[in-house]
């Protein structure tokens, strides 16, 4: 009798989790796709501005337009790694699994957008400076940021004990974010080839009004695109964890092993 009741409870729990999974999936889809739709619409506007509307910069010419993808890329990368650091710190404190999932989702986005910065920068530098790369402070620190968060993923999967891997990764996530203020201030503190800030200044943006409008549209568009994908990735991680737990409850040891390898 006791055994039958126990089995019934497991089944009821699995059904409740399944219903909850469907709700999570719906909410994640709705928020992710809604933000994504607005982000894509704003992206179309921003591309029209970049290629048809904004005036061409007098000294650098057409290549200056890379700035409209480079700067928002950097902003989104910093936002993403800020989320990683915040969620990682609270995860270490409270131990809530969902915070680790949020940090993981943000770290993926941060890597994508830092790669955009590291690719678009040299494409501009080759024509503006005559070289693809130079070991000046801002470039070097940005490359270091990329490697730190590459380490975040490596550390995460480096141990058989999943909880320990997550905790190590959380520490890397926090340490990595300390690099962000250094990157921002490096052009002011050190002798640097990189242009001085033109938007994030205490005396306001030092740009032609049309250029400033294009930059802010791009910032909005990329932030929304990032948030949309971040929500979808976070929801996917939550559902993966739930599916894994359900499989373990149902006595499927293979899926538990697979989960340990893939997460």
């Amino acid at each position, binding site marked *: 009798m006791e055994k039958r009741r126990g089995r019934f409870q497991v089944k009821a729990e699995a059904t409740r989790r*399944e219903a909850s*999974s*469907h709700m999570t*999936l719906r909410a994640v889809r709705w928020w992710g796709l809604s933000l994504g739709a607005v982000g894509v619409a704003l992206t179309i506007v921003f*591309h029209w501005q970049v*290629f*048809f*509307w*904004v*005036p*061409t*910069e*007098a000294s650098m*010419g*057409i*290549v200056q*337009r*890379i700035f409209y*993808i*480079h700067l928002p*890329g950097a902003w989104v990368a910093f936002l993403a790694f800020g989320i990683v650091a915040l969620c990682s710190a609270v995860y270490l404190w409270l131990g809530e699994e969902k915070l680790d999932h949020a940090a993981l989702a943000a770290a*993926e*986005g941060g890597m*994508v957008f830092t*790669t*955009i910065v590291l*690719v*678009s920068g040299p*494409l*501009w530098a*080759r*024509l503006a400076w005559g070289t693809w790369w130079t070991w000046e402070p801002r470039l070097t620190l940005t490359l270091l940021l990329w490697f730190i968060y590459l380490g975040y993923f490596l550390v995460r999967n480096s141990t058989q004990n999943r909880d320990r891997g997550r905790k190590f990764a959380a520490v890397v996530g926090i340490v990595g974010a300390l690099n962000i203020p250094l990157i921002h201030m490096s052009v002011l503190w050190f002798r640097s080839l990189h242009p001085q800030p033109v938007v994030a200044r205490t005396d306001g943006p030092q740009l032609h009004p049309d250029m400033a409008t294009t930059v802010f549209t791009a910032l909005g568009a990329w932030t929304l*695109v990032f948030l949309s*994908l971040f929500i*979808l*990735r976070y*929801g*996917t991680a939550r*559902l*993966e964890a*739930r*599916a894994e737990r*359900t*499989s373990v409850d149902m006595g499927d040891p293979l899926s538990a092993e697979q989960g340990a390898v893939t997460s």
Partner: protein
Amino acid sequence: MIRVVLMILALVALGLGLAPGTEALQTGDAPRQMRHFWHVFAAYALAWLLVFGWAASIARRLKRVEDRLDP
């Protein structure tokens, strides 16, 4: 696919050619302008390739977990 890329390239080139201020730079330096154009195009194309790559990986994961939860 190639046709779509060529159409985008033509549209972007036309847009950049007509953008305010560009005509002042076109003083017999066409190869330099072409090089600038290619760098801009490459930067935007690579950026979107990366974002779409991330979106595709999320979609693949979501589909997999959906199939697992609701076979």
